[in-house]
Every structure is written in C-alpha cells, then in structure tokens.
C-alpha cells in the first residue's frame, strides 16, 4: 500500500471552551474517495477547516503527502495541492463566473487559462454565463462553479464540504456524478456529507462521526451493510 495522501492524527479543535472535534484520526489513500458522514454538528466541517488551515487545531497533527501541515496557513496549502470546496459554496457573488474561475487559479498565473477552458468544456452552463455575476446562478450552478473553481487550482486532494446541501434531488445526482468523475481522473477526494447513504455509496472508505468523535469506520460498503450503523446513524438519510 502506498503512503496516504492525508493523515490526521488525534485531532482536537476547540471553539472557546467547546470541544467541537475530539481526538479524531483518519487517513486517506492516494486516489481514493473517503467520506466523513454524520449529523449536523458532528464536527465534519470543523475537521475539513482544520485540515485546510482555516481553523487552528487545539491538539493533534495533520500530514499532507508526508509533510506536517498542522500549522500551515490556508493560502500556502492551496499552492501545494490541498484545495477545499467550502460549505455553502462560497462563490464570489459580485464577481463574474469567469472571475471566480480565475480566482481558482490565483497561485498558478497564466498556466490556469488552459484549465479554465477545460472547465468551460466540462460545465457548459458556466461557459454560457461566463460574463454574468456568479450571484445570478442557480444553487446547482453555483455548486458546479465552486467545484470547477477548485479544480482550476489543480488539487491533489480535494476536500468537498456538503456539496449536495440545499439542492434539488436531480441536481444532487449531478453533483455526485461530478464527484465520481473527479475521483476517476485520479484526484483524491474527501467528501463530507449529511446525505450519508448517498456519500457511502460513492466512497471507498467511510468514517461516521457523532458529537466530534469517530464512532465507526471501515470500507464504505461494509458500513452500508451494517444494520447497526444504518439504524443508529443513517436512519433518516
């Protein structure tokens, strides 16, 4: 087995006195799709934000491609290939679609132009709307823009935080098929989802979180087949 792309060891994150994430460990193998599932408030987004340098962990260690990145600032990690599609999409509404994509290539200079063209071919709707403010796109289109923008950064590891949130069922299907395509091209993906059943079906490996702790983990298919897990954690999904 090759060295994992991402290793998280005993990660704890505190907001003030509240421990949002407690002693979480997981690893992500090169080229795999790993999902963190759990209810709202289970600490999934906090883990993603700690990995990508947006929040400071209280304890623990994060290693990316062998290097310790526990205290690295977010803007340096993007250049190293660790890219996040944040929760709520966070597109830049007053900037045009084209400008949003260009922001994805912030650290790449002119090399990004070709990737942006590829994104226009892949996401036809973005090409049609390239000169419109991104805020005028529908929710599903904004999610595609957020994903395309992250791909312009040429990620080696893509962290997707709740990409299906607030989207209509048909659009959710589209988002998941894009995620599977990304993984098929060799990019390693960490997917955080409330839609646990759906995420586990797409993933190789899953971690189930509850109140900041990993309560179950294993191959995604096994988690899906485990009646205890389904009853206790995936019941509503």
């Amino acid at each position, binding site marked *: 087995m090759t060295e994992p792309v991402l290793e998280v060891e005993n990660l704890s994150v505190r907001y003030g006195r509240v421990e949002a994430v407690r002693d979480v460990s997981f690893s992500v193998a090169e080229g795999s799709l790993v999902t963190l599932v759990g209810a709202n408030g289970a600490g999934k987004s906090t883990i993603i934000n700690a990995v*990508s340098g947006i929040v400071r962990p209280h304890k623990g260690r994060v290693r990316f491609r062998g290097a310790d990145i526990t205290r690295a600032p977010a803007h340096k990690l993007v250049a190293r290939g660790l890219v996040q599609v944040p929760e709520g999409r966070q597109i830049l509404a007053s*900037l045009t679609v084209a400008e949003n994509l260009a922001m994805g290539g912030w650290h790449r200079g002119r090399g990004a132009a070709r990737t942006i063209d590829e994104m226009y071919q892949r996401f036809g709707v973005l090409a049609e709307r390239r000169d419109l403010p991104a805020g005028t796109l529908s929710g599903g289109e904004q999610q595609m823009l957020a994903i395309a923008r992250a791909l312009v950064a040429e990620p080696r590891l893509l962290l997707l935080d709740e990409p299906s949130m607030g989207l209509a069922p048909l659009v959710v299907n589209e988002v998941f098929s894009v995620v599977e395509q990304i993984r098929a091209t060799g990019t390693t993906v960490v997917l955080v989802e409330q839609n646990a059943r759906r995420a586990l079906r797409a993933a190789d490996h899953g971690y189930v979180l509850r109140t900041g702790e990993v309560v179950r983990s294993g191959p995604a298919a096994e988690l899906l087949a485990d009646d205890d897990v389904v009853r206790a954690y995936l019941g509503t999904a």
Partner: protein
Amino acid sequence: MQQLLNGLFIGSIYALFAVGFALVFGILDRLNLAHPAVFAASAFIGIELVTVGGLPFWAALPAVAVVGALLGLIVERVAFRPLKGRADAHFAGLISSIAVAGMLIALLQWRYGAETRRFPADTFPAVRFDVLGAQVTLLQVVIVGICLTLVVGLTWLVARSRLGRGMRAVAENPTAARVLGVNVDRVTATTFAISAALGAVAGALFAMNVNSAQLGMGSAIELKGLAVIVVGGMGSLPGALVGGILLGVAEVFAVQYLGSAWRDLIAFALLFGILLLRPQGLFGGRRARQV
C-alpha cells in the same frame, strides 16, 4: 470658464484624495480616518524633499508616493490588523485609525512646528497659457493630468488586474478568498498601501496648488472626502472621481458669486441635493452590499 477650470483643478485633487479613501472603504469596507493625516504628512515630506533634499518636483512626487505607501502599511499594521478578528472590527478600526492620525499629526508638529510651510517658488516653472479666454497654469494642467491618470489607472487595476480581483474577493468574502489561496493579510496591506500612496500624491499636489502646507489641512479635506464617497456611491471609484470634481466646481462658484463664507454651505447643500435625488449616490446601486 475660468471658474469652471479652477473648480476642475481643485476638484481633481479632491477626487484623488477621495479615490484613495474610497478604495479602502469600498473594497475593504474599512473607514481609514488616518488617510487625511497621511495626506497632510505627505505635503510636509514633499516640501522637505524639495527644500532640504534638493529633489526636483518630478522626483519628489514618486518619492512622496512611496513614503505614503509605507505610511499606509504602518496604518494597516497598527490600526487595523490587530483588530481584524473582532466582531466590531469596523468600528474599532475606525477609532484606532483616528488615534494613529493623531499620533501622525503630533509627529509632524514635533518635526516641522506649527507654522505653514511652502514649496520654494522655483519648484515648478511658472508657465501660463490661455484656454478659451481663461488663464491656466502649467502646474494646474499637470495636476489634472496626474490625478486623472492615477484615478483611471486605479479603476483599471481594480476591475481588470489579478490584484484587483483579489481585492474584490477579499472584500466580498475573506474566508472564500483564503480557501482559494489568497493571502488575505497581504492583499489587505497592499490595498492600504495603494490607497495611502494616492492620498500622499494628493497631499503634495494640494500643497503645490495652494502653495502652503498646514497641520490642519488633512482635517479640512477629510469631511469633503467622506462627502464625495457618499455622493459618488459608496466605494464607487468613478463616483469618487465625478463627486470630487463636482465638489471642487461647486466650491469655486460659491466663492466667486456669493463670497468665501458660503463655500462649504453651498458645496455641502449641493451634495445633499444630489443625495435627495439619488440616495444611492451617483454611481451607487450597481453593487448592492451583501449581508
């Protein structure tokens, strides 16, 4: 005609001052009240560079811009960055920038004393010519040229360049900008530096134009700059340009036809009038503020 041109000259300096103000206010949503102090400091520093340093005007102006940019970096570092994590960062920054302004003015007083300073008489060649029957000096033409060039250049920078895109991204959503790999602190500091450099050039040109520099010159222009930002449309750079020129013209006409006591009354009444007709400002509304 003469009055219109005079208004244009003073107005273009207001515009340059206001555009620097509007850059930080409109893009970063921070009101930097140390901007007027940088404006005043740069006038004194420009005069010292010419009188003591022996620099010609052409060399002194870029030097003033560099000094202004450095002052802008200091203002950002001292007055704004330490407060950026606070929920009331906007208001706290406003107050701390007033404090930095006070310190800057005190330093000026310590170094230069309280009396008025002037550029030497031969700093700029006293060439005059006729434009449609009005008298125009070469200095005035140069001032308008420099101001317009800088304002147009800045507008291009914000709208088209990579840095401008980064500024707008930071303005709209700092967290999203960080996730995209933008060094938010660096973009913020750069914005302050550019803003202050423009304010500094405006200060030196203002002192050239009225042939004097006083410690209070910053506070005199401060309110005008704020009014111009509001009238132009919060943070709109073209709005600040047009608003500045409008204010300059209104002032000159008020002085000419009603006397100098009426200057501020007429100018600000006009600005209020514009706001009654267009509450969003001349160029406002295009970019509604996001919550």
